[in-house]
């Protein structure tokens, strides 16, 4: 669908979400989704063990102030209902409960071999041109079902690896610190 980056009314005002048929494809993240075609993902480049430049997002064409860069739903979102009772019944911090819920969902996606979601998660683990795994925007957004990861690599993914992946930036990252980076808090009121 072609979208004018200066007019995203249909995306914003929920018409798409209301009119869209229920999507049974749990491996899809295509509810409301726009990425400005003027951006690309830059993968990290290494010279030996030294990172020459890290990952990032670059503009390949001029982007004017006010232009939309992207509108994306989360690849995984916390299941509010599932943690609601846990919040009431335990003294565990909400951030920890939310983190565990996200990892539960990610593990379920991995075990069910939902390739699009797996590609999205594993892009967070880091890809460089050296390991041959190019990161693309479609992959990050859970839109690409190309099987670039081996069964052996997927076998090695457990809860610890998922949690480490999400927390990997910075040293001794506590869950709460992590939330300000990889996970971004929605409208919570």
């Amino acid at each position, binding site marked *: 669908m072609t979208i004018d980056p200066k007019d995203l009314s249909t995306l914003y005002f929920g018409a798409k979400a209301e009119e869209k048929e229920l999507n049974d494809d749990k491996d899809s993240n295509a509810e409301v989704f726009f990425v400005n075609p003027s951006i690309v993902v830059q993968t990290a480049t290494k010279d030996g063990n030294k990172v020459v430049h890290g990952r990032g997002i670059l503009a390949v064409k001029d982007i004017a102030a006010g232009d939309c860069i992207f509108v994306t739903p989360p690849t995984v979102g916390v299941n509010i209902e599932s943690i609601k009772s846990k919040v009431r019944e335990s003294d565990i911090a909400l951030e920890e409960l*939310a983190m565990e819920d996200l990892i539960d969902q990610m593990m379920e996606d991995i075990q069910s071999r939902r390739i699009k979601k797996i590609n999205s998660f594993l892009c967070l683990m880091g890809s460089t041109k050296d390991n041959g795994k190019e990161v693309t925007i479609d992959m990050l957004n859970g839109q690409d079902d190309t099987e670039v990861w081996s069964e052996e690599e997927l076998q090695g993914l457990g809860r610890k690896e998922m949690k480490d992946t999400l927390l990997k930036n910075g040293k001794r990252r506590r869950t709460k610190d992590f939330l300000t980076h990889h996970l971004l808090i929605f409208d919570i009121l």
Partner: protein
Amino acid sequence: MQAQWKSNGDYTPPNVLGVFPLAAMINHSCTPNAVRTFSNGCMVAHACQAIPAGAEVLWSYIPPTLVTVDRRRAIKKRHGFVCKCERCMIEAKELRKDLLPVNLKQALDNADKWNEGMLDMSRIDEASKRQLCAATIHLEETLFSSKSLSNEVKRHLRVGYTNLHFNYFNSMLAAAQQQGQQQQNVQALVLQSATQLHFAYCSSNNTSTEHLSVLHLCYELANASGGNAAFWTEAMKRAHMTRYGPLGSSLISVRNCMVHTRTILRQRDGYLQVQYNFL
């Protein structure tokens, strides 16, 4: 939110947390060219400055309203790296305390204690309010008027002292409401300072929520001084749409979008005049 959830059986927030891998690719800068908000369960990112071809898309991981030392400390603690963005580098170079003249260093030290966060004016005694005002004026007369600092670093510094400015605005305007005939003079002083802050934000952290609330304040004060400036102009709309996209074109949706922001107008006992007019 957790406490509310525990006590109110019917309460369910619309959303809590999610993983956004594309957003996670965006690196940090203290002078970002992109901003993010949330709408309808999605993350929405807009360019807040023009981004030329070949440039990296960058946004700020932390609020812009911190001075260099505090920004770097927050970034290091939360994200494990030392920020070396353009703003941090130029501020670190020009504001080295061991090289600053004594009067500038003293102005910074006086200002720092009022810049740590938003103050509850109902709990601040009159002597402290006078110290706050004196520190703000001292900063204005020394650093912001200094010929030895570049205009660029002065703009960044103003933004870094946003909390000081907001505390000053709240204190002055609350006092002005009680001063009758002196009210317009005080409002004019605040307007002058708020306008400078607005221009600083334009180049440093354009259309951050703090910037937008400063803009609102400027328009309100301009009218309070007897002007007849229209508030919801095309330019204002464009400024809000830069951050909020189409949601920024409607004042009603802007009010909803900004309801969570820690702005001057959200501060208890803060400036209330605009409460029923704009936000």
